[in-house]
């Protein structure tokens, strides 16, 4: 294979892998591409009160199902001195508290923190339920029900419209005699739900009760709201039993499906349950990382996130270096800026990150300026080269120490960050610039020093950009993209921007000689 083809192959491979991984993490794992992406996290507390009679107690409480459209951050069960277990059965999860003997008012708590994930992922295919049992109504009610169903049937086209029509009819403001009869005087929500399910069963349609909680920030003493879920075309469709609207409302947590009880207390009385809800806003990235770690998604499990926090912080910095390298490549190959030392600008940029821009530049200029002055004196002392550079290192350290002490006395806290500058590198810079000064004059020193500083500042601006910082750390595969870019730039044989200036006189002369 030709070198060139091979290079393009590698570049495309790297780009494909890098971008592919980014897209996978974004779309499949839900990593946001912006650091400001936030998600509401709902904390729901269920408080169970009952009065114990001194007998053995078993409290059984239905827990919300772990479906794919919600991610559970945390679950807590609390009640003093109770045995606790979580039971999982085909009908759902239940919490069970138990105790041998107790009397008096008792309280158990269940706390859940969760957030809603991409709703598109929430298409659970359901098994065909068994044919619903025909409910038994007494004669009068049965006649009313059949009449009502006949009416509704004539006004609907299919199961979906039938269900909606039935619900709106039952909820109409001007109820007919049949409706009033069916709804009766005890028309509480629970009764209505069962009535709807029974009427649908009479029609041969499978339906079940769904209990859920509207999530609203700061609510207390909430109760569950009943919905009706109807099996239509291989899927369960959720209907609001008061309006006939289809689908899960926004900020609605489904707590329980089916006809099991929400709360059973054996050995107690006056059991009550109330929910309170609090909303917190969290960064999506933190939630996703935690969720993926819990799920042990391979790509996250074997990533930087698995390192201890301290190492993670180190990597935050290290992963920014490729960005700096890219800037240097661009500045040198495309712009043609001369810097003293190829990657010295990156090291200055790293120091600038610690010191903030303006302070950093001031400190840099002070240290290098003072260093050059002292170095020019050292050159008169007739020292061997290695001894001289070592002397410069000590001088640089002395300068840095005095800057720290003076600024501390003056109350300039910012200048204390001076210690983040790489001292050996600074010494080398001073040594080289001083030689440059002697051999090529101050002009060259300013060109190269200015070039280094400019490159460092641009690298700094990129490396401190919040989005770039976020992306490099959370999408380390960006390095592959970066690598591909640098490989491509390594093939650039066009003119550098500085060369357009360098050869500009040439253009003029060629034009004039042609005339």
């Amino acid at each position, binding site marked *: 294979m*030709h*070198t*060139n083809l091979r290079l393009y192959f590698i570049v495309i491979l790297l780009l494909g892998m890098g971008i592919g991984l980014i897209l996978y993490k974004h779309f499949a794992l839900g990593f946001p591409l912006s650091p400001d992406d936030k998600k509401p996290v709902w904390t729901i507390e269920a408080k169970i009160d009952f009065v114990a009679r001194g007998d053995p107690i078993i409290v059984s409480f239905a827990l919300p199902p772990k479906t794919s459209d919600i991610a559970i951050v945390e679950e807590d069960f609390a009640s003093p001195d109770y045995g606790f277990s979580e039971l999982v059965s085909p009908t759902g999860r239940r919490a069970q508290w138990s105790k041998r003997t107790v009397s008096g008012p008792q309280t158990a708590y269940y706390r859940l923190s969760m957030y809603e994930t991409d709703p598109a992922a929430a298409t659970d295919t359901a098994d065909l339920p068994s044919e619903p049992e025909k409910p038994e109504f007494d004669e009068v009610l049965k006649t009313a029900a059949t009449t009502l169903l006949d009416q509704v049937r004539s006004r609907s086209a299919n199961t979906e419209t039938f269900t909606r029509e039935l619900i709106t009819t039952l909820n109409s403001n001007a109820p007919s005699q049949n409706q009033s009869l069916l709804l009766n005087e005890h028309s509480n929500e629970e009764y209505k739900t069962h009535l709807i399910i029974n009427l649908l069963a009479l029609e041969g349609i499978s339906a079940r009760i769904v209990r859920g909680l509207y999530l609203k920030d700061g609510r207390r003493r909430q109760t569950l709201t009943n919905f009706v879920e109807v099996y239509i075309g291989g899927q369960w469709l959720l209907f609001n039993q008061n309006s006939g609207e289809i689908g899960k409302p926004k900020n609605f947590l489904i707590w329980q499906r089916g006809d099991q009880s929400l709360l059973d207390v054996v050995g107690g009385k006056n059991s009550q349950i109330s929910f309170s809800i609090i909303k917190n806003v969290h960064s999506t990235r933190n939630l996703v990382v935690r969720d993926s770690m819990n799920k042990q998604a391979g790509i996250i499990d074997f990533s930087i996130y698995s390192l201890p926090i301290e190492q993670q912080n180190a990597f935050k910095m290290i992963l920014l270096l490729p960005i700096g390298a890219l800037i240097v490549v661009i500045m040198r*190959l495309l712009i*043609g800026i001369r810097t003293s030392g190829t990657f010295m600008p990156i090291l200055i940029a790293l120091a600038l990150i610690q010191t903030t821009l303006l302070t950093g530049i001031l400190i840099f200029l002070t240290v290098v300026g003072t260093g050059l002055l002292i170095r020019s004196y050292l050159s008169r002392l*007739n020292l*061997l*080269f*290695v001894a001289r550079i070592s002397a410069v290192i000590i001088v640089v350290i002395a300068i840095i120490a005095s800057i720290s002490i003076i600024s501390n006395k003056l109350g300039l806290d910012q200048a204390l960050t001076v210690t983040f500058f790489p001292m050996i590198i600074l010494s080398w810079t001073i040594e080289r610039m001083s*030689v440059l000064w002697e*051999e*090529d*004059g101050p002009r*060259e020193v300013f060109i190269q020093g200015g070039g280094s500083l400019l490159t460092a500042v641009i690298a700094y601006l990129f490396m401190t950009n919040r989005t770039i910082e976020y992306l490099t750390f959370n999408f380390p595969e960006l390095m592959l993209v970066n690598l591909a870019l640098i490989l491509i730039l390594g*093939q*650039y*044989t*066009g*003119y*550098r*921007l500085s*060369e*357009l*200036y*360098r*050869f*500009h*006189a*040439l*253009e003029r*002369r*060629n034009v004039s*000689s042609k005339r």
Partner: protein
Amino acid sequence: MFLASAKKLRSFGIIGMNQRNFGLIARYNPRRLYPLVDDKLKTKLLAQQAGITVPELLGTVQYQHDVRLLKEILDPHAQFVIKPVKGSGGKGILVITEHEHNLYFKPSGDALQLRDIERHVSNILSGLHSLGGKPDMVMIESLIQLDPVFADYSYQGIPDLRIIVFRGYPIMAMLRLTTHASDGKANLHQGAVGVGIDMGSGSALHAVQYGEPVLFHPDTRKTFSELVIPHWDKLLQLAAACYEMTGLGYLGADIVLDRDHGPMIIELNARPGLSIQVANAAGLAPRVTIIESIQEIDPDPQSRAAFSKQQFAIDSVNEPPRELRTRRDDRAM
């Protein structure tokens, strides 16, 4: 207008830094050959073996403790040049034109004491001027005597002729004249004047200082129109022969004219710069293309020099500005 249009530069055949590194140096100069030219002692030896005249070697210093012996080496000589063996771009070169009692004089008239020279030597040994700061050696050479032809065109220094040799064929030449601004050094970016030379006749074409055209030498006020380099054929052959000497496909030969010994090779460069294009007001690319299209390189340096002389003479009309082929293009072929 401060910036030239890239399109125009390309149509003139100007080669940029990236293209030089990629299409010429990386392609024609195998890395293993670099030490031959980066080490000036090796170059000198090679040149002597090939029968090429070089400045006489007066002595070398390799170790720090030998610096004490410097006085013995220097004593018999009134004039000499101290060079780092692995220096680049003329860095670290110290020229002494007069030696009186204990004082050594630079061309500018500045006086140095022996210990100043010793310090300079020990700096070189520590690698201050070498590529990558590696430990270096010092060589002391005899001083080149200014050829009277250039007497009116140089200031406190020896002009040198840079000839670019591509695959053994000299393709472009430039004379570098020292000026007051360049402190007697033949470095263009320090203010030396670069004079483009007609390959056919050895006469001056254009001259530039700091990238701007000049018509006469800034210090001697002598116009360049009368400047013709003597022994032109000999110089071209000398440059062409450097190809066999080193094996480098793209090299810059620095040649000086000595009053007594004639043309001498003082240095070879594996990464010659691009300012030669500015001095000649012409791009390298068309000439590179012509040489690249030659299938078989003529083994005789003399006939190569003759070919170049005929092909690249300024009045030869058959020089269409063509773009340099890069590696990419001939892969496609």
